[in-house]
C-alpha cells in the first residue's frame, strides 16, 4: 500500500503540488489524469525521490525517500537514448540496482533473456537502441522496467508515441504486470484508454487532486469536465463503455450514444 499524506512540492516560489492525500492499494493500476501543468509528472518524479517534498509518501509504512531497497521502475515519456548501446546492454541496466552497477550475474542474464522474450524482443538484443522504432523502444523500456523486478512501476504517458495497435499491446503487457502484484501508477492523456485499463482514476488540476475513485464513476463526474474547463464530452458506446473526446467549446453536460 502506498500512502501519500499532505504532500507538497515547491519550485522556487510556486507550489506545484499542494496537500496531496492518496491511498493506493498494492497490485492496482491508478491513472493520473489532468491538463498539462496539473502536476502529474511532478508527482511521479517526487515518488522517485528526485524532488524535495514536505508531507510523507510511504510504501507499506516506510517513507519512500529513506527506503533504499524499494524498487520503483520508471518508464519515461521521452527516454534519453544512448548512442551505440545494444538492446541487451540497455535492458541489463535495469538489473543495476539489484545486482550492483557493472555486475551481471548468470541469474540476471537469464532474467534479461526471459523478459526480452516476453516483450517479443528476442532476436533484436544485438540491435542498437538508437535505431529502434517508437513501438520497439517502448517495448525495450517495458522490458528494462520488468527486469528491475519492481514493487511499483511508474509510467509517464506510456502510449503517447505509439499507434493504436502498439498502444493496446503495451497496455495489455502492463495489465499482465499488474496481475503479478506490481502496483502501477501511470499518467495518460487518453482518458478513454486510461479508464479502460486502470481500475482507478485520479484527476489532478493545478497541483491538487480534484477527485480520486473508481474509473467508471470518475469519468462521469463533473470534476473531470471541470479539470478540462468543460472542454471534453463523454459518450457511451452501445456496450455501455464510455468514450471521452475533446469538445470544440465548453460543452456542459453532453452525453449521448455513438
Amino acid at each position, binding site marked *: 500500500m502506498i500512502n501519500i499524506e499532505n504532500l507538497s512540492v515547491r519550485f522556487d516560489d510556486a507550489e506545484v503540488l499542494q496537500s496531496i492525500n492518496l491511498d493506493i492499494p498494492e497490485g492496482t493500476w491508478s491513472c493520473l489524469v489532468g491538463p498539462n501543468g496539473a502536476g502529474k509528472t511532478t508527482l511521479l518524479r517526487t515518488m522517485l525521490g*528526485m524532488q524535495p517534498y514536505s508531507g510523507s509518501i510511504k510504501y507499506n509504512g516506510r517513507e519512500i525517500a529513506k527506503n533504499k531497497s524499494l524498487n520503483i521502475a520508471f518508464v519515461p515519456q521521452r527516454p534519453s537514448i544512448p548512442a551505440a548501446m545494444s538492446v541487451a546492454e540497455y535492458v541489463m541496466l535495469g538489473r*543495476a540496482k539489484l545486482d550492483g552497477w*557493472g555486475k551481471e550475474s548468470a541469474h540476471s542474464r537469464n532474467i534479461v533473456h526471459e523478459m526480452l522474450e516476453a516483450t517479443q524482443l528476442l532476436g533484436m538484443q544485438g540491435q542498437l537502441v538508437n535505431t529502434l522504432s517508437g513501438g520497439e523502444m517502448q517495448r525495450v523500456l517495458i522490458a528494462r522496467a520488468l527486469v528491475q523486478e519492481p514493487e511499483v512501476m511508474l509510467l509517464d504517458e506510456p502510449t503517447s508515441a505509439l499507434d493504436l495497435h502498439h498502444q493496446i499491446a503495451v497496455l495489455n503487457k502492463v495489465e499482465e504486470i499488474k496481475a503479478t502484484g506490481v502496483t502501477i501508477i501511470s499518467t495518460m492523456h487518453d482518458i478513454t484508454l486510461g479508464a479502460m485499463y486502470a481500475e482507478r482514476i485520479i484527476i489532478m488540476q493545478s497541483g491538487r487532486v480534484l477527485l480520486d475513485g473508481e474509473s467508471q464513476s470518475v469519468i462521469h463526474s463533473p470534476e473531470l469536465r471541470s479539470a478540462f474547463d468543460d472542454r471534453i464530452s463523454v459518450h457511451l458506446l452501445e456496450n455501455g463503455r464510455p468514450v471521452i473526446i475533446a469538445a470544440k467549446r465548453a460543452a456542459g453536460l453532453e452525453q449521448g450514444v455513438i
Partner: protein
Amino acid sequence: MKKNQIDRVWRWQITASAAAALLIACLLGVGFGPVNLNFGSIIRTLLGLPNGLENEDRTLLLELRLPRVVLGALVGAALATSGAVYQSVFRNPLADPYLLGAASGAGLGATIAITNGGGNLHALLPIFAFLGGVLAVAATFLVAGRLFADPSTLLLAGIAVGSFATAFQTYLQQRNSAALRPVYSWILGELTVANWDVVKWAGFYILIALFVLIRISKVLDALMLSDEEAYSLGVSPQKIRFIAVAAATLATATAVSASGLIGFVGIVVPHLVRGLTKRATNRSLLSIAFVGAAFLVIADLGARTLLSPAELPIGVITAFVGAPFFLFVLRARNRGSQ
C-alpha cells in the same frame, strides 16, 4: 553462450587485450628512435637483470626515452578517459575533454607564462596552464549558476568561458608578437619537455583522477539515461556528474599543462574502443585508458621518427593517423547497425 541467457555485456579479456597493447606500445616506444635499442636488453635493464644496457644506451633509455614514454602514456590515458567521461556526462558523442574551457583556459595560462615568463619559461608554464584550465572550468560552473547544473547549461557556459579565454589569449599574443611561435608550438602539443620531475607531478594528479573515474565508471552508465531513469535505478545523477566532471577536469588540466593541447585523442579513442568492442558501457573506461595511453605512445614514436632527426608536433600525428582510422571504425559500425 548458454541457452536462455543473453551474452555478457563486458568481458575481462577485452581489458586484458588493451593492457597488452599498451605494454607492446611502450616497448616499441622505448626501443625505436634515431638509435634503436635491443628489446631483450631493454627488458633486462628495466627488470634489473644482468646483461642489460650500458653507458649512453642506458642513459638514453632511463633518462630520455622512458620518462617520455611514461608521460605520453599518462597524457594519453588522461585525455582518452576524460573524453569518454565527458561524452557520457553530456550525452554527446562529440564531447571532448576540452569542452568546458579547460583547453582555452590552459592556453591562456600558458600564453601568460610565455609572454611574462622571461628566462624561466618552462618552470612556470605548466603551473600557469594548469591553473588556467582549472580556473576556466570553475568559471564555467560559476557562470552556469550552480554545481549541479544540467548538462546543456554547463555546455553553453563552457563555450562562453572558452571564447573569452581565447579572445584574451589572442590579445596577449598580438601585443607580444615574439611569443607567437612558442605559443603556437605549445598549442600543437609536445612531449619534448618530458623528464622524471614532470612525470612525477603529472602522474600524481592524473593517477588520482583516473582512480576516481575508474572507481565510478560502472555507475557512469546511469548518466546516459534521463535523470528520472537514473533515480529509479538508485543513482543520484547530479552528484555523479559533478564528481565525474571534476576528476576529468583534473586529468585534462594536468595533461594539457604537461604536454600542450594534443587534440583528437579524447574523441577518437573512446569511439575506437566502443566501436571495436561494440559496447557502450563505461566499464570500458579502463580499456579506453590503456588504449589512449598506447595510442599516444605510438603517435609520439611517429612524431620522433618520421622526420628524424627533426620532430613533428604530436598533435599533427594524432589527427593525421586518428582521423582516417576513426572514419573507418565509424563506417564499419554504421554498416554493422544497418
